[in-house]
């Protein structure tokens, strides 16, 4: 167990480098521009999954509403892009040129005040991170200082996701309603719809994701990370040791929210629109599933889990449009029943010992202490 206290374990470093190679080299090499853009879209969900590993895997806070933060980040970016494409010239057909088309359809004649700051890209980039983080702080402060946790917290996050969806759909004049904010064309004059732009965005997205993973690894291996694990396993002991449990929980929840917001913004840039379907309960639970398939204790596993599930979803639905939901269901049941620790669990309990045995046989390495899956998972 002492190896846990090292700043970064060797195996994790290797895992990080492998995932970096997969994202930055292998996937771009084996996929065409169209599929690469799809992989890029999946990787934006990985931001949420990484956040969930910290929040749920490390600190034991299960949030079933991460779509809220993903959606908020995405909406912030979408508002900026929509304003940019709603120039008076481009919207001359409207009764009020110069405002987004859906506002005109809803008889709104001037830009609402909260849209104004989104003319600025700097403000938008800050908002992508801060809006989700601030909402997470409000939720976290209200819940954790009152010691609401576990399943009650999960239910409340779901309720908030539902409320936000209804709010967005209901205020369609200000938010685009159920259609969402569509037809986003350019970022500071740079056409984001071309294949070359999508490839560039893919790499920006990939680098950001790796940076987020690296940051999360650091958080996990810091003293802070160990306190999170401690309060997951024995919250009362941590509290009686003099720590402010709520503050740690709020921090990790805000951190996960901010990460998710970045994912949402990258999603909007790569897909070209944002809609309330990402804010609701179903996508939020799907994101928990990505995390579970990857292994909720493994930051790296979260990336693979997201890629695998989404790849499966796309492939099944292309090959068997009428059966794909069943195939997806079977995949989830199989993972949960047979591999509760997800892909990372399979790796740790099956693949890694095999690799160890092989390397031991060749005598290149001295015998390593037998590691239990749980120890590695941490």
């Amino acid at each position, binding site marked *: 167990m002492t190896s846990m206290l090292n700043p970064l374990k060797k195996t994790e470093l290797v895992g990080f480098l492998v995932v970096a190679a997969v994202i930055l080299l292998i996937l771009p090499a084996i996929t065409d521009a*169209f599929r690469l*853009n*799809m992989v890029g*879209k999946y990787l934006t969900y990985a931001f949420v999954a990484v956040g969930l590993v910290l929040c749920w895997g490390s600190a034991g806070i299960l949030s079933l509403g991460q779509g809220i933060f993903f959606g908020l980040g995405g909406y912030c970016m979408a508002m900026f892009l929509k304003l940019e494409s709603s120039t008076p010239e481009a919207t001359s*057909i409207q*009764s009020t040129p110069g405002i987004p*088309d*859906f506002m005109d*359809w*809803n*008889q709104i004649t001037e830009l609402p005040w909260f849209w104004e700051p989104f003319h600025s890209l700097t403000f938008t980039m800050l908002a992508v991170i801060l809006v989700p983080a601030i909402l997470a702080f409000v939720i976290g402060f209200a819940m954790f200082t009152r010691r609401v946790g576990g399943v009650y917290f999960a239910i409340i996050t779901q309720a908030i996701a539902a409320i936000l969806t*209804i709010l967005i*759909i*209901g205020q*369609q004049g200000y938010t685009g*309603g*159920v*259609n*969402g904010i*569509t*037809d*986003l*064309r350019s970022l500071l004059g740079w056409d984001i*719809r071309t294949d070359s732009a999508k490839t560039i965005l893919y790499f920006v997205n990939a680098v950001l994701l790796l940076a987020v993973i690296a940051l999360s690894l650091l958080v996990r291996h810091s003293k802070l990370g160990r306190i999170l694990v401690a309060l997951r396993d024995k919250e009362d002991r941590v509290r009686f040791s003099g720590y402010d449990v709520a503050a740690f929980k709020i921090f990790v929840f805000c951190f996960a929210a901010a990460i998710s917001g970045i994912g949402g913004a990258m999603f909007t840039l790569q*897909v*070209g*629109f944002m*809609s309330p*379907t*990402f804010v609701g309960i179903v996508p939020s639970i799907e994101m928990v599933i990505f995390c579970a398939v990857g292994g909720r204790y493994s930051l790296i596993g979260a990336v693979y889990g997201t890629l695998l599930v989404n790849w499966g979803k*796309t492939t099944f*639905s*292309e090959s068997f*449009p*009428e059966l*794909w*939901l069943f195939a997806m269901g079977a995949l989830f049941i199989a993972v949960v029943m047979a591999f509760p620790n997800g892909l990372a669990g399979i790796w740790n309990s099956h693949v890694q010992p095999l690799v160890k045995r092989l390397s031991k046989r060749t005598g290149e390495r001295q015998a390593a202490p037998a590691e239990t899956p749980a120890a590695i998972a941490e």
Partner: protein
Amino acid sequence: MKTDKNGAAPRSMLRRKLMIGAAAMALSVAVLPRVGLAQTPPTSEVNTTGLAVTDDTVTVGILHSITGTMAISETGSVQAEKLAIKQINDMGGVLGRKIEVVQEDGSSDWPTFAEKAKKLLVEDKVAAVFGCWTSASRKAVLPVFEQYNGMLYYPTFYEGLEESPNVIYTGQEATQQIIAGLDWVAKEKGAKSFYLLGSDYIWPRTSNKIARKHIEDKLGLKVVGEEYYPLGHTQFNSVINKIKLRKPDVIYAIVVGGSNVAFYKQLKAAGIDMTKEKPLLMTISVTEDEIRGIGGENIEGAYATMKYFQSLENENNAEFVKAFKDMWGQDIVIGDVTQAAYLGPWLWKAAVEKAGSFDIDKIKEASPGIELTTAPEGYVKIHENHHLWSKTRVGHAKADGQYEVVHETTELMEPDPFPEGYQ
């Protein structure tokens, strides 16, 4: 099929088949192509942009939700499109090529629609896509179709405010559907006051905006209330009470989806008997498909304005309904959108044959002016703005779930997606 001599065969075969009344011959395209049909032109001529066209096949896409909440609505469209494609193939295909279908599931999720649309255009290189149902899904795929230059045939009646060169709108836009119905109810039923209500999203809101302008400015009548409820809302008691209090002559309802069931049942339970027409109920959102869910006895007596009802009496429709039932089951019902979806492949075929090419740009150019005399709804023609000229009908709901057509505009209604004076 390669030589002129053999190439002439499909036409004479067609005549023979028509005489024996084969289902496949339910339609024949009115604009007889000047090129095509008589021969199979080489692929290099008819396909200069690398679409999925070979010497004997052409691939098209079908993109609807077959899972999720919209599946129940979109299934009819898929069935209609498959029927049309089968019939076209039985007639010899398009420019001598059999149509092959790649079907994708939008799964009631707008980003999935965008992803699948892109896949159909970029990977499968389909020559046309028949699909989408909700406005949200259309809005999601529109940039994809414009960017990759695809062709979408969109079947649903919708709010207008859109006119894309890459879309043919085979359903009615809002003014076509609304104005004729309001004129009729004012003239024939002497209606003076209206209560507008609807589900809360862009189509009902835009439609009611047009209805209000028409009622107030053009007809000089009164709107006594206007309200919206979220999609899926099931408690309509408060609005029903308000209706009882304000006593409008007409309830103008644009409630969609599952809310319909609750709305009509609660109206009936509150003692508003629509067969007495006090107040009269007029809707533009309930087709025969929705009545299956609502129950014919709950909506009996209501009026609907649309361009198509299953009970429409003409030869084209009789053959269409028969062919549809033969293919998909005898107890199936056919609503307005299903019929509009059925037009898609036929309009595309006519455009391809008029253009003598599968190239998207040539189809775009050839589309305006295309006529179908064989549409189940009667005669339709593509307008310069890519919408259809069509007649609007008023149907009177019967207890058996069908509409009886009580009025039909004498002229074709001009599609006007950006109506002056209604904005």
